[in-house]
């Protein structure tokens, strides 16, 4: 037995298979960056990457919440609608003269409560997450239109300040507060996933819900927690989107749930749950953002090419996942 363990030791000295999808995504990102740098002038600068962060801060935050959900083996389709609802609520409440920070707090609470409710329904009534969050998606989108069917501009000074502030990082580099918030969210989430019981329970639940239950883990709390986190992240993403667009509109962020899922999958997280890293999700969002950047540098291509590339990438990564999960399921004799 020791010799077997020794052999495995040797094999593991190379790259553990669980890191391979993340490394592939990282490699892809680097390759795209280098290729862009060779093809276009003024491309290979730090600001390009920072711009990707700035333009996709809201998507990054939403994708972080989605990562929690997907790690438990679930899915959350409501995120795009909750983003829209958050922008809509902010815009209309600010128009009514509410103080900016009270609006932010209220929006975050509403997002978290929506997530909590969906999580509780999913767990206690044992209904597929797909259906429950689909209902949540329609509900949140519908609530947007009860507020207004028109776009509402945001003129609140706090919001416009945040939107226009640029934090100088030295050199010619600068970022928006939204990007900083997104990075902080990523760091907190990565810490939670790796260093807290909640995080490990998320992985355990995604690995095998039945086993997690029999091991005495709080599966109910974990499942409800991930949807609450996702709801909170969507609301926060909505606020960032409001800073970015300075308006609230019921038709904004249509299909963002799919972008978030795509980013998570491209980041190497298994849709069946239990395997993946937050760093992968960050890389996934960066890859999506860089595709857009390259297409805008190209100039002649329409923005729909972004979709085509994302579609192709998704195919490749799902196939990759299939290869890895197929390999690990085979029992070692």
């Amino acid at each position: 037995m020791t010799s077997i363990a020794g052999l495995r030791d040797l094999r593991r000295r190379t790259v553990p298979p669980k890191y391979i999808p993340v490394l592939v995504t990282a490699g892809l990102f680097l390759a795209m960056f280098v290729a862009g740098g060779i093809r276009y002038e003024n491309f290979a600068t730090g600001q390009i990457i920072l711009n990707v962060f700035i333009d996709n801060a809201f998507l990054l935050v939403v994708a972080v919440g989605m990562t929690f959900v997907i790690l438990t083996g679930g899915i959350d389709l409501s995120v795009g609608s909750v983003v829209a609802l958050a922008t809509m609520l902010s815009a209309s409440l600010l128009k009514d003269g509410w103080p900016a920070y009270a609006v932010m707090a209220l929006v975050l609470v509403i997002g978290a409560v929506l997530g909590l409710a969906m999580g509780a329904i999913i767990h206690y009534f044992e209904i597929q997450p797909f259906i429950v969050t689909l209902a949540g998606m329609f509900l949140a989108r519908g609530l947007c239109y009860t507020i207004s069917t028109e776009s509402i501009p945001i003129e609140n000074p706090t919001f416009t300040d945040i939107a226009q502030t640029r934090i100088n990082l030295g050199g010619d580099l600068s970022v928006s507060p939204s990007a900083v918030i997104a990075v902080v969210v990523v760091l907190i989430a990565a810490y939670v996933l790796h260093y807290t019981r909640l995080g490990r329970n998320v992985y355990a639940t995604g690995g095998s819900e039945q086993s997690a239950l029999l091991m005495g883990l709080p599966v109910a709390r974990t499942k409800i927690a991930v949807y609450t986190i996702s709801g909170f992240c969507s609301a926060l993403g909505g606020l960032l989107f409001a800073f970015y667009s300075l308006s609230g509109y019921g038709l904004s962020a249509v299909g963002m749930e799919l972008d978030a899922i795509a980013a998570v999958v491209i980041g190497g997280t298994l849709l069946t749950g239990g395997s993946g890293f937050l760093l992968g999700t960050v890389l996934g969002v960066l890859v999506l953002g860089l595709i857009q950047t390259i297409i805008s540098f190209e100039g002649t291509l329409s923005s729909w090419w972004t979709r085509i590339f994302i579609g192709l990438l998704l195919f490749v990564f799902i196939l990759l996942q299939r290869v890895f999960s197929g390999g690990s399921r085979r029992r070692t004799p």
Partner: protein
Amino acid sequence: MAAPAPILRMSGIGKQFPGVKALDGVDFRLLPGEVHALMGENGAGKSTLIKVLTGVYDIDAGEIELEGRPVAFSSPLAAQQAGISTVYQEVNLCTNLSVAENIFIGREPRRLGRIQWKAMRRRAEEILARLDLDIDVSAPLSSYSLALQQMVAIARAVDIDAKVLILDEPTSSLDAGEVAQLFTVMRRLKEQGIAILFVSHFLDQIYEISDRMTILRNGTLVGEYLTSELSQVELIGKMIGRELADLEKLEERPPAGEGAPLVQAEELGRTGAIQPFTLTIHEGEVVGLAGLLGSGRTEIARLLFGADHAGTGSLKIDGEQVSLRTPRSAVARKLAFCSENRRAEGLIPDLTVRENLILALQASRGWTRPIPRRKQDELVDKYIAALNIRPANPDQLIKNLSGGNQQKVLLARWLILEPRLLILDEPTRGIDVGAKTEIQRLVAELSDGGMAVLFISAELEEVLRLSHKVGVLRDRKLVAQMDNEGLTTDTLTETIASGARS
């Protein structure tokens, strides 16, 4: 023997499921520092009793006392915190997590809420060292064999401050060496005063390790006995409630009439799975395959059934050269394969007994020609009766049946197709003596009726009892084929060990 006060006492336990009375007035007690075997056929209520004890199910009647205080656990977690840990038959761990995490999850060493990974790995290594295991604790559990996963499960259970350790069929996937290792661990735990509740279908293991046993039959208590005072024959009699005449009848096997060769494999092989082998199976012949876990037994079966592609060699059925590219083409040639892993690969738990039974027949007809309901009922009733499937209710969901009865349903599914070669991969693993005997008798009857059977089992005695010819496997190679005349388990064991045609 001055009995110390029992650490656990269950009295008058009753549990009702829709349509089934799973437990009825069962008493059970567990003394500190003993290994107590819980015996009974499948469906006798062993698993239910354990699940009631550990809080997976509520009880409908009766009470449970732990250390003299009445308790009722609402969940496995509550039972665990009170000192009752369970290792189930199927390894209930998360294979995507590391070994160390699987031991500690839920009680990770923390400082200010931050998990101390280093301390966790070090402590995991210490715990495993106590069980004489030296493995990389940061590797994912999925990279280890089922047997090692089981040991990790036990390590987890033991490290939780356990007063009562429940081992529900821990040995069904272990080989002899690993079982011995497990028993060493169990004896050490026993010395520490832990009460161990042990469930196993291997009677030899029960007699080797247990001090006392409680026997259940059909959800009721038969009695509690000291292991040393109850012979194996008496035990089986009490478990199945009838004499063992059935078992004895099988001992006289008529030799197989020399039928025509049905399946001829010539140098058939697949890289990494099984070295090229030559094997002929005649009509009406039972060919047994013996060998250790992972020696290539299942791989042979999968090649013959077309579930894997052969890399080399050729396969003839009825003297006609064939290439089985998929199981479908094997089914079309009247081969049937009852797989080893009945839960994962065979049964569909949420369908009823009837639906599971006719699945293969329907598949072979194609979905455009549904089987008439009357024909279905006729077939289902016939096979439920023939195989003595209990409960005999075709509309029961398959997941509510016990392991042995699930196995019978799986068998019946293939028998409906009236195959000419039936491949049985470990058909009797994890099922009780009664059901085992019935399946063995069925195999004998089928082969007398002209069906060829390829019989794979880890139990050498069973292979010898049924087979006309035995193939021995070792290290993914078919090392010997012997006619079953005067063969003993000793000769087989020697052949497996030496691995050569001597």
